[in-house]
């Protein structure tokens, strides 16, 4: 699929084609308006229903929820600010996610590259794949309890203790499990699906096994690996709420939402949900931007 980015500009060099710029701006404007239609209708509908219900526990109004979002540093029901909770959540997700990437990418590449490893591991790993991360909770609690990174590193006080104690091993594990499979699968199939003729043609040019791995398989699989990393980050972020509902958690957006629910502050619940959505979209957008920039060849080939 060719996108507009590939369009050639026939204006003479050094001479700006205002006609085409204004056309582009116009098209961009129309696209922007078009993509805003549904959100605007959605928000308007939400506000209408909320105003009609007049029951903030069932559905707060847009204004009530926005009130919380536009004061991200205000202390909420004694749990710290929205911002600080998002920050704690982000740290947890990134830790679990980075660990998942560090383990899943090499295993996936190895399984894709080396047939016996695939046959050995695929069935086994496949058994765990369908288990939802949440189903691990009882076991994970039995294993890790409320131990945190601080426990692991033997830090018992000070500023670092406060930070690290927020990174409960049980949560990191749940997030790890969530991110692990998408990353593993895409690394595995990224390597497996490399067109054979690329490998053959490198081989007849005198490539060693190492050359083929480094200069053919890895670059060919790279877009798929990054794509899996993007999906994995999304899943990791989605596991957040379940992870932060675990005992020992006293912070994070997930905890904020569940705690706000118990004190009937639905406006905080909604604001928390919106922030999860927004942060998730931003992470996804950043990844996509990288993919678009770095892997144009893949989008445009064939």
């Amino acid at each position, binding site marked *: 699929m060719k996108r507009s980015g590939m369009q050639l500009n026939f204006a003479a060099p050094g001479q700006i084609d205002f006609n085409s710029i204004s056309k582009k701006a116009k098209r961009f404007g129309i696209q922007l308006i078009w993509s805003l239609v549904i959100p605007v209708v959605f928000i308007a509908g939400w506000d209408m229903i909320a105003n009609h219900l007049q029951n903030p526990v069932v559905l707060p109004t847009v204004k009530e929820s926005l009130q919380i979002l536009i004061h991200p540093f205000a202390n909420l029901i004694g749990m710290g600010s929205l911002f600080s909770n998002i920050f704690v959540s982000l740290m947890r997700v990134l830790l679990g996610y980075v660990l998942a990437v560090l383990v899943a990418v090499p295993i996936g590449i190895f399984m894709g590259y080396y047939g016996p490893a695939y046959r050995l591991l695929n069935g086994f790993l496949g058994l765990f794949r369908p288990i939802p991360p949440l189903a691990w909770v009882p076991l994970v609690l039995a294993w890790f309890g409320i131990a945190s990174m601080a426990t692991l590193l033997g830090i018992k006080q000070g500023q670092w203790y406060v930070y690290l104690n927020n990174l409960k091993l049980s949560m990191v594990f749940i997030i790890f499990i969530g991110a692990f499979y998408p990353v593993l699968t895409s690394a595995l199939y990224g390597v497996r699906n490399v*067109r054979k*003729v*690329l490998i*053959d*043609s*490198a*081989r*007849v*040019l*005198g*490539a*060693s096994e190492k*050359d083929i791995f480094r*200069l*053919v398989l890895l*670059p*060919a699989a790279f877009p798929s690996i990054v794509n899996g990393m993007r999906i994995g980050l999304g899943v990791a972020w989605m596991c957040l709420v379940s992870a932060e509902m675990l005992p020992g958690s006293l912070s994070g957006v997930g905890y904020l939402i569940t705690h706000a629910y118990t004190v009937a502050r639905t406006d905080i619940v909604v604001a928390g949900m919106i922030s999860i959505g927004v942060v998730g979209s931003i992470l996804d957008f950043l990844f996509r931007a990288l993919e678009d920039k770095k*892997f144009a*060849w*893949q989008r*445009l*080939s*064939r």
Partner: protein
Amino acid sequence: MQETVINIEHLSKTFTTEQGALVPALKDINLSVDLNDFICIVGPSGCGKSTLLRIIAGLEQASDGMAFYLGEEVKKTNREVGMVFQDYSLLPWRTVLDNIALGMVFSGVARNESLQVATQYLKLVGLGDFARAYPYELSGGMQQRAAIARALANNPRVLLMDEPFGALDAHTRILLQKELLRIWEQDRKTIVFVTHSVDEAIYLADKIIVMSAHPGQIKETINVTMARPRDRGNPLYGKMNARILSMLDH
């Protein structure tokens, strides 16, 4: 006495499919290719042409019999035996120039030098303006030109070509046949060229090997002595074409 470059003796190949079925692809092939020969192999689809080339290249092992390159049994790929494939085979994330330099990257030639050599071959195939282009920006014909340049830049002694023009339109195909001959005339590298087009074989080859299918066997070897460049309007051309086509029918 000509120097023999490739020698194939009683070579057979049977594939085993994933379901365990045996597929006989080649049976008792005997063939020798002399230095500077331009040989074309024609035959119906599925008669084992690709398999034969892949065995010569060292990408596949014979089930029976042997293939020799300069008197030594072929066991693995060898930089001296280059190959051009029918499918587009440039690495899509490398520029055309970096693709052509690929063989030299594998053999550890300094980057400066490899790019210089690559540029030279790029010009040879008429792609001088496309050094920095990516493969997806090239037409099919241009990609195959680049693939030929890539094989030649590695300076092989023998060039194996597996239906390299098979996916191209008729016009581009004829253009590239001419180009290939022009390049070949410069140093007459030994070429084994597989095609299912009889016309293409007569236009290019010194010697045509006609194969039949199920299992793949050599049916006939025909020397083409018409002077080059060959004229498709020449009655001899048409006669030979008709004769080979009738062979393929039976």
